[in-house]
């Protein structure tokens, strides 16, 4: 697959269709695949990588490249879940669709290197998919691990393998996954008492070091200036005031992306403290689905999300008030 993608990228680059290619390259470690921008065939030949460690969502990099005051056409490789973010960014006028050539890449789920390491596999240098197993290449030789044991949590509960936007496809397009089970953990949290839930989140969020990785990676966090960085907002200093205010950073961020979050799960992937931040967003998504009917942000670029549109069937505020009392 990687070789097909490389070949196609070089073709499009050399025939002038695109001037830049957004994909992945190895980072500090060989399992640490990082989004990258390529401008020459040589760079692609030597550095472009696509394997089961390429979980990073590159859609936001399209926005970043387009901000650089150039109309140069960009080639981007998008996995199914990345296409949802891409659509949402297009809907919010963050991406000029005409200036992007999208190659949809079929995906069967990405590996979570932390899980592989936890299984005692060390010296990882590469990965290959083999049916219901991953073959992990290490400096000590090949190791195998069951797919189910190494799959990233967000991929195990994948919401959709469907490519919602593309100019061409490499690999196979999939379907929206019914009953993905991605709300199971949220339901568990909902079943807790308010005090238990409060303790759960206080505990999880107490590990936050405010590195802002979740915010910076999030494709829904696209403000010119974040309210937490804006001295005029009057709340920029709040998060530093005490640990409770600090916890509010994540709650407020979840509110700000509510209705726009596509559930790509990048926030939890990049969190160095392993805080399950995506659960906050999933709670919002679950509530939206229950109160306003099923809605998937980034399904298309046209529909308005339920929190910024009004229909006669919308839940009455009293319903929400009552749910708050549960």
């Amino acid at each position, binding site marked *: 697959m990687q070789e097909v993608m490389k070949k196609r990228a070089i073709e499009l680059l050399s025939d002038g269709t695109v001037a830049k290619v957004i994909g992945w390259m190895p980072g500090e470690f060989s399992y640490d695949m990082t989004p990258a921008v390529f401008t020459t065939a040589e760079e692609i030949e030597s550095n472009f990588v696509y394997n089961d460690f390429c979980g990073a969502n590159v859609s936001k990099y399209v926005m970043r490249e387009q901000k650089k005051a150039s109309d140069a056409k960009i080639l981007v490789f998008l996995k199914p879940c990345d296409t949802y973010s891409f659509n949402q960014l297009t809907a919010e006028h*963050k991406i000029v669709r005409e200036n992007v050539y999208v190659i949809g890449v079929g995906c069967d789920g990405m590996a979570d290197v932390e899980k592989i390491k936890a299984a005692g596999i060390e010296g990882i240098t590469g990965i290959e998919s083999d049916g219901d197993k991953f073959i992990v290449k290490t400096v000590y030789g090949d190791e195998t691990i069951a797919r189910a044991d190494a799959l990233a949590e967000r991929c195990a509960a994948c919401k959709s393998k469907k490519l919602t936007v593309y100019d061409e496809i490499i690999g196979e397009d999939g379907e929206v996954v019914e009953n993905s089970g991605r709300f199971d953990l949220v339901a568990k949290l909902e079943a807790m008492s308010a005090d238990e839930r409060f303790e759960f989140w206080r505990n999880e969020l107490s590990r936050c070091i405010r590195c802002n990785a979740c915010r910076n990676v999030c494709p829904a966090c696209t403000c*010119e200036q974040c309210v937490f960085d804006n001295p005029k*907002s009057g709340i920029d200093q709040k998060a530093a005031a005490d640990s409770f205010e600090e916890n509010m950073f994540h709650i407020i961020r979840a509110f700000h992306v509510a209705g726009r979050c596509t559930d790509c799960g990048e926030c939890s992937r990049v969190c160095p403290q392993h805080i399950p931040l995506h659960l906050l967003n999933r709670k919002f998504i679950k509530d939206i689905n229950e109160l306003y009917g099923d809605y998937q942000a980034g399904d298309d670029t046209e529909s308005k999300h339920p*929190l*910024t549109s009004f229909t006669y069937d919308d839940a009455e505020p009293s319903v929400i008030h009552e749910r708050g009392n549960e």
Partner: protein
Amino acid sequence: MQRIGVFVCHCGTNIAGTVDVKAVAEALGREPSVVTSVDYQYMCSESGQNLIKDAIRDYKLTGVVVCSCSPRMHENTFRKAAAAAGLNPYMVEIANIREQCSWIHKDVAEATEKAIILGRAAIAKVQLNAPLVAGESPVIKRALVIGGGIAGIQTALDIADAGFEVDIVEKQPTIGGKMTQLDKTFPTLDCAACILTPKMVECAQNELINIYSYSEVDAVSGFVGNFSVKIRKKARYVDETKCTGCGLCTEKCPQKKVPNEFNLGMDNRRAVYIPFAQAVPKVATIDADYCTMLKTGKCGVCSKVCTAGAINYKQTDEIVERQYGAIVVATGFNPIKVDKYDEYAYGQSKDVITSLEFERLTNAAGPTSGKLLRPSDGKHPHKIVFIQCVGSRCTPEKGKSYCSKICCMYTAKHAMLTREKYPDTEVYVFYIDVRTPGKNFDEFYRRATEEYGVHYIKGMVGKVSPKADGTLEVQASDLIMNEQLRIDADLVVLAAAIEPDKSARPLATMLTASMDTNDFFTEAHPKLRPVESPTAGIFLSGACQGPKDIPETVSQAGAAAAKVIGLLAKNKLTCNPCVAHSDELLCNGCSQCANVCPYGAITYIEKEFVMPDRSKKIRRVASVNPAVCQGCGACTVTCPSGAMDLHGFSNRQIMAEVDAICK
């Protein structure tokens, strides 16, 4: 640094009875930037206002906090007082320590503490207030009346009489409304058509009145003085400009089995029809649900017989967009459906009818040409039972909790007219209470009982059972005699409760006008502003605001017209300066604010910016039209960047208030 004056009002004992006002003034006097803090009997009085004016001058105040009643009451009073003393009126903040404090608390210590907190929040807000200047917007000198019943007609006539243009939008093919279906009107017993049709004709003839019949309001945008309304002229498949109203098509149409809604389905009409002889406009309408031509493409009789060539099967709905300075809602009422009252056997017997059906049975233009005949066998009824309060003053699960107000009087009318025309008919009226508070109303009711011998029985009917011989056994209790009654009646008439027309709810949403739980429009103030909606520029006429009889409807219609005339007579309106604005440097162009704006006040523009590295970049940013913005604040809470903010209610001010309360 602000110099703030705090003024705590006693409001007689309204506030001082529950709140220790002296303690409040003293505590707030210690707040930062407060240079004077006093209490007074009535701040809204002349001397109270002078107290504020003098303090502004003496202490060189830059901000004023009045702890008093709701800002809806006296905010304007205090703003004007401040302006008179040379302070920008928007530097005045009200802390509502009456409605939100003294009136709802009993414990003095608690209420006092809360009053101090509310005052502290207002002080925190005023610290961040900035002087604002109100702009002006023009007034479009045309009014829209939604609903062409007697309420809408009267309002339109009165507005036109003052020289302003009026459009009436009526969803039926003709104006006239419910009153066209009535026979006689209480308490004078003049014929409804005789007094209504001249007004309908007047509407048609008045050059300033434009009637959109068979039309509905599709969308409303804009604001007081400057509404833009999309009117859907539903396809009636007849060219209004060509149709002469000769009625030939309505006679020749072969589709004869269409229930005639004008006679409440008690007889049939054709698929092409004119509701009644005096319809305005007198134009035929084709009922697409029944027309064979429209359904199957085979027929075309009406088109063949029409000498004017007015039939047009290809007509489609047409959208007309018109601008208005004011909108009057006159959507009226409907009797409730009585099918669910099984005990009254409405669904089981044709001889159990509603009062409106009774009205049609006694009307010369009705299905029986005015002869009172039983619907089942066409025989003359000799014993009639009227049941009052069917669904009125009821439990909310079953009916309406309110009194429908008109039923006592029209039932007395029905009873009296029956006895007058058919003295051999016995008439019983079952009631909970007889309510006749109106000019000449009680006299009217007494005539029914004393002169016409109508049997009024206090008590409710428990059950109506159709019997094999065609009569209806009415089981009831007489609460005064304390006995159970069984009456074999020939006809039972139900005084069904009335409810707002179903079109009112979606219309209220379009107009952003508020409604009560029964879907009646709410007035800006129940006593002092009864014909205005709380939404500026929206006025209320007739039963859409609450149950009303004709005299009351006509008075309210006139009052609404007077308010509209008062508005249209102005050339310019002062705008609310508390509107949203976007910080373009922060705006990320996501469009969420434009999505939530109910007034369409936000557009996006491409604008060139100089970036920090001195390069130029075109960015997409939000732009607010201050004349259209109503300051609701929906955009400010939606904007994730905090780029949208509201003058007078900025995010920082609200945060400061919250902080002051939580301190």
